[in-house]
């Protein structure tokens, strides 16, 4: 008996999803390579003043220079490091928090689960961006704080997805069997539940990276990151505070970091989409 049937045309076929996933993978790999080999790729040290301020693009400086004469192309290349690091580390923080809460809430759905899920609901209800801004402003400007702020704010969504998976897992025969045989909960969680949520968690993790990269850019753009860290968001912050948005400089100062942010977050989003297609058939 079939519980459900696929209706063709209502969703992309797995093949399309796979292709999109490959495109996303290529985008991510390119950025990761750029971040890793930044010192080789970048023509200058991004913290060094190598030209006159506010230079338009030229042969020496392909994307011109910023307001103190640092090379914008080098900033852009090194920016991949900060943006990707923040994105990935913040997503790991979110993943650890989200998985822990999700598994506990799913495995003990009665009391602990209720309390946990209600707190998740509270976090989901809070106006997100204002909270992010307030937290970032309160904690002060540093890379670590940016990571922590983003990490602790984006775990709530993933934790719900994981909880629902665990809820269905805990009543499977092998889990019930191990419990009847007297195995401790810890063992059942580690042996049976976690391995079967790992794949789902990976999917939500990749999506969280995409979110975290965008949030880092948003925070840095608003001046709530560390403005002296070379990230794509901070390039935009300086472009904004030194008036590049009002001048022709937007073409080489605003557009490139904007595109990089788009590529990074799109790349992770595409991969996440392809993964979810395989992992989470109900989507």
């Amino acid at each position, binding site marked *: 008996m079939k519980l459900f049937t696929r209706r063709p045309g209502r969703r992309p076929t797995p093949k399309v999803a796979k292709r999109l996933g490959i495109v996303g993978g290529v985008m991510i790999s390119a950025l990761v390579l750029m971040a890793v080999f930044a010192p080789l790729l970048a023509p200058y040290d991004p913290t060094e003043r190598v030209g006159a*301020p506010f230079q338009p693009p030229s042969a020496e400086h392909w994307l011109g220079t910023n307001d103190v004469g640092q090379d914008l192309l080098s900033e852009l290349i090194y920016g991949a490091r900060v943006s990707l690091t923040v994105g990935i580390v913040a997503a790991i923080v979110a993943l650890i928090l989200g998985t822990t809460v999700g598994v506990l809430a799913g495995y003990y759905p009665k009391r602990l689960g209720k309390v946990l899920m209600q707190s998740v609901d509270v976090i989901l209800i809070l106006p997100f961006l204002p909270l992010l801004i307030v937290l970032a402003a309160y904690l*002060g400007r540093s890379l670590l704080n940016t990571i922590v702020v983003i990490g602790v704010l984006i775990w709530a969504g993933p934790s719900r997805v994981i909880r629902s998976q665990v809820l269905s897992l805990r009543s499977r025969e092998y889990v019930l069997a191990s419990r009847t045989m007297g195995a401790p909960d810890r063992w059942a969680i580690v042996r049976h539940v976690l391995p079967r949520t790992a794949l789902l968690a990976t999917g939500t993790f990749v999506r969280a990276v995409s*979110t975290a990269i965008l949030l880092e850019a948003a925070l840095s753009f608003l001046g709530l990151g560390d403005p*002296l860290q070379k990230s794509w968001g901070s390039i935009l912050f300086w472009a904004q505070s*030194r*008036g590049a*948005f009002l*001048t022709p400089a*937007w073409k080489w100062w605003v557009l490139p970091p904007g595109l990089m942010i788009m590529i990074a977050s799109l790349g992770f989003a595409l991969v996440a989409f392809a993964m979810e297609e395989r992992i989470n058939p109900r989507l």
Partner: protein
Amino acid sequence: MKKRIAIPILLLCLALVAAACSSDTDDATTTTGGDGGSSDTTTTTEGMTEASVLRAAITGDEDTINPYTYISGFPGWNLLMMQYDSLMQLDANGEPQPWLAETVTTNEDLTVWTLKIVDGVTWHDGEPLTAEDVEFSLEYFMEKATGRFSRDLSSVEDVTSDDTTNEVVITLGATNPSFDLVALADVPIIPEQVWAEIDTPGEATYDISTNVGSGPYMLVEYEAEQFYRFEANPDYFRGAPQVDELVVVVFADDSGALAAIRSGEVDVNFERVSPEQIDLLAGQGGLEIAQGPEFTTQMINFDASKAPFDDLAVRKAMSLAIDAQDIVDTVFLGAATVGSPGWVHPDKAVYNPAVQPEFDPAAANAMLDDAGYADSDGDGVREYDGEPMAFELITNSSDSLRLRIAELTAEMLAEIGMDITVASVETATWEEAVWPGFDINNGRNYDIATWGWSAPIQANTIRVAELVNSDPSIGFLNLTGFSNPDVDTLSAALLTEADEAAFETGIMELQQLIADNVPFVMLAYPDGAYVYNADVYSDYEFIAGQGIVSKLSFLPDSARP
């Protein structure tokens, strides 16, 4: 999940769209700008010297602009003084000159000031302005606190007036050589017939009918958050203004005001233009820049009361290692005057030209070597008392120019073996660290910090005593905990020096002493730059330290002091 990704995306998209929209109009500027901007234009004598209507931009509402309602010190006070007169008026050099008082005489020790009021001046309502009005105004401000004007007059003990000779005599409690600058050229004179009926000005509600002054402009229309309309006073005692109607439009922010002047919606921007805009605006469709010295300061503070900054060698080495000229060129794009290590702005009459900024990192390194600050572990950072010379340089995040100053300073100090980390914090956090509770008796919680003082402290040169004297009752702005007996003695003596020649010699000497002992590192005095449309009106007067927003900008040349 979806929703949350959407918000930051939306933010970025908005930013990009904003950039794209605004760019269409100005593609030509990259090549054409540049020539008019950097030249030291005060005001051109050619060009339009008359206009029927002039539209000016400000950012932020100023309420009804009477002495008890105007909001900002700049340009609120400046717009207030379009409608009112002070007893003295600053000339183009920023020196007070007789104005409503045609003569100002003082006794030997500068405690009794006798002012002869100009005869035949009338208020906007036609009533005559008399010496009694002047006495009334001063007493009114002393009794009914306004903040600024009450503070200006805090040294006044007694005011008397004589309506037959039209003279006012002001008696001060102590010698105050700068009373003309801080009080006579600052306090507006208000009409007794209007204000006598207002007992508690702080609580009263006003409309523009209260705005009866004697100045060249009368406020005739006001829409909150939208605009002010001033009409010229044809009977003004110094001569009728050259602009018949002044409309001041309120914008929400700088970019709005700049867009308006580019598109010709307004003819002058009363707010300062940031350095990177100067070259872009100049020469574009009749736009010109009035640029000149202003008296705000940018400096680096350190806590000189503790090691290693209590050692003169360290402070001196820091000042030698910081290239103020580079900061002026890079951060301010040349639109600033390099800071004098003796504090006083080079455009002030009492500036000591012998005190010059020095930049010599090699000498700085030698100085630190001699003083025993060696880099014993070879990590590129010197040590003091066994600790590495690694410090936090705090700066307020809201000021992006200062953030760049901090970045450059850290880079320069690395050259002399100091490891500086820039910490960008909220303005309140930064103030609390440098000046806890705005009272120096609370001490200091910082190592190195960016800092800057507003114009009034530089405008009145002897206020430098407040910055460098170690006695908290005199040096109540001594944020660096600096202490030097010679500086203490001289600065205290100069505060009450009534003899002009002796004061001048003393202040020259004090500048040298300050430069030698480095209570702080002076970086720059940023210029004021204002953009105006020369096709509409161009006869602005740039008052040194004050800018173009004053009644002088609109009076005929013959009426200017």
